[in-house]
């Protein structure tokens, strides 16, 4: 059996998961919020893109120029009005509230959309592929998403490392009360981080909508993949997240090469192995108290 092909496909799939996981990782890193509605927001963005595409008759990529900023604004408002109130010593309020949001979004989409599978199409790009040596065919779109994920992660890690906003993001995750004393409103930092995460989820939603398909309830599966990528990669490390996403992607495609029906299961099993033997993830950074 040729394992090189599933290996490469898995790495590319990892690019898609990394796009998802980046926003989730950002929100968790900055606010210690586990956003259970994250996958549903991706699906919401995909539906939003579909609506814009049908209304304006433009390509999904052009529609993203409207949907991504709109999602970012939604994230900002959501953080300032609802999520901010759930922050505290206990993680329970934010879990409950985002779980509630998840149910609300799924049901709104069922009400206004329908339960059937939808797809976004970029025309010929959807199925275009290039042939590599050893007769390995690589889809143009998955390759594009993989490269996009690397570009986005590079920008994110540059922003966190080098800009004043990035310094404040790290400072606020160390000690929000002291950031307050420096003349910075921590709520503003949180809301901007959520806006960035929601802009990213719009991109990820579009990518998933083109590469696979979606329905009102497919957010939960996306959330699980993003979670697994973050945990395998190690909390709080962006490049770890990319590594985790690639491991998950490879586990799924290699698993599918052996048993096509058990693709998802293979990913979960590898995740469980990491939880059991490397609970801090690839980057092995100790979780700060």
């Amino acid at each position: 059996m040729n394992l090189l092909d599933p290996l490469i496909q898995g790495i590319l799939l990892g690019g898609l998961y990394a796009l998802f996981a980046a926003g989730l990782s950002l929100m968790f890193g900055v606010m210690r919020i586990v956003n259970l509605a994250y996958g549903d927001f991706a699906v919401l963005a995909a539906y939003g893109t579909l609506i814009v595409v049908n209304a304006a008759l433009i390509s999904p990529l052009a529609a993203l120029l409207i949907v991504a900023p709109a999602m970012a604004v939604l994230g900002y408002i959501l953080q300032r009005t609802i999520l901010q109130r759930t922050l505290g010593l206990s993680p329970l309020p934010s879990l409950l509230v985002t779980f509630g949001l998840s149910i609300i979004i799924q049901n709104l989409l069922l009400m206004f959309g329908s339960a059937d599978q939808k797809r976004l199409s970029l025309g010929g790009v959807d199925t275009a592929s290039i042939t590599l040596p050893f007769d390995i065919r690589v889809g143009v779109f998955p390759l594009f998403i993989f490269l996009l994920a690397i570009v986005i992660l590079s920008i994110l890690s540059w922003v966190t490392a080098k800009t004043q906003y990035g310094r404040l993001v790290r400072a606020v995750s160390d000690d929000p009360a002291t950031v307050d004393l420096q003349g910075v409103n921590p709520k503003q930092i949180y809301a901007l981080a959520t806006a960035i995460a929601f802009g990213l989820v719009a991109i990820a939603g579009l990518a998933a909508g083109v590469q696979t398909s979606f329905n009102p309830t497919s957010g939960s599966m996306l959330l699980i993949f993003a979670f697994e990528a973050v945990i395998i990669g190690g909390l709080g490390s962006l490049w770890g997240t990319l590594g985790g996403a690639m491991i998950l992607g490879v586990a799924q495609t290699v698993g599918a090469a052996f048993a096509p029906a058990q693709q998802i299961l293979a990913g979960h099993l590898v995740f469980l192995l990491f939880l059991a033997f490397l609970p801090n993830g690839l980057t092995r950074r100790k979780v700060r108290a």
Partner: protein
Amino acid sequence: MLDVTKLSAAYGQVTAIRDIDLAISEGGILAIIGANGAGKSTLLKTIAGQLPTKSGSIVFDGDDVSGLPAYERARRGIIMVPEGRRLFASLTVHENLQTALSAKRKGAWTLDAVYDLFPLVAERKDRRAGNLSGGEQQATAIARALVANPRLLLLDEVSLGLAPSIIGELYASLPIILEQGTAILLVEQDVSRALNVSDEVHCLLQGATSLAGKNIALSEISAAYFGTERDS
């Protein structure tokens, strides 16, 4: 510049300080002394905005700031060096200092000027703040506060747990800070050290003022400090 009138604050139902009156003028220094649990840190936190004001007023440069959030007070120039330093442990020393630029206050204390004042901090510039010794951390915390160009600097227990030589160095920087017109409100347990830098003291006992004034005899201070009867 700062006028605190009948200030009270509480942790939940428990009143921690009550009816405190104090004033400090531009470039002035006032030492707040008192035993453990007397309410010194609570007073500073209330002025900085980390604890809500229960009653009374905090007038700063003519405005009552007692209803403003901490970050808004910091932007107006009330900068606190919190108890226990509270540096951002995962940031480097330099990055810790840079965070204070977000208060967006211009003045004499540029990053370079602050590094000149604390050569020790300049040497550790690229170290992670979490890996510094206690004295280095305290110097960095004061340096970080200075970068925000405070009009009023609140110093909470600067000497706590530090070696005497470091404490001496930190205290030697205070006159230079005062020269720039910054006022300092200093919380200190060590009375003689407080008296060295400040003529005026404000002594707290169980959350209330037990003594306040200038050039007071040490015997009188110790009576107010411990709450014992004064001999007369």
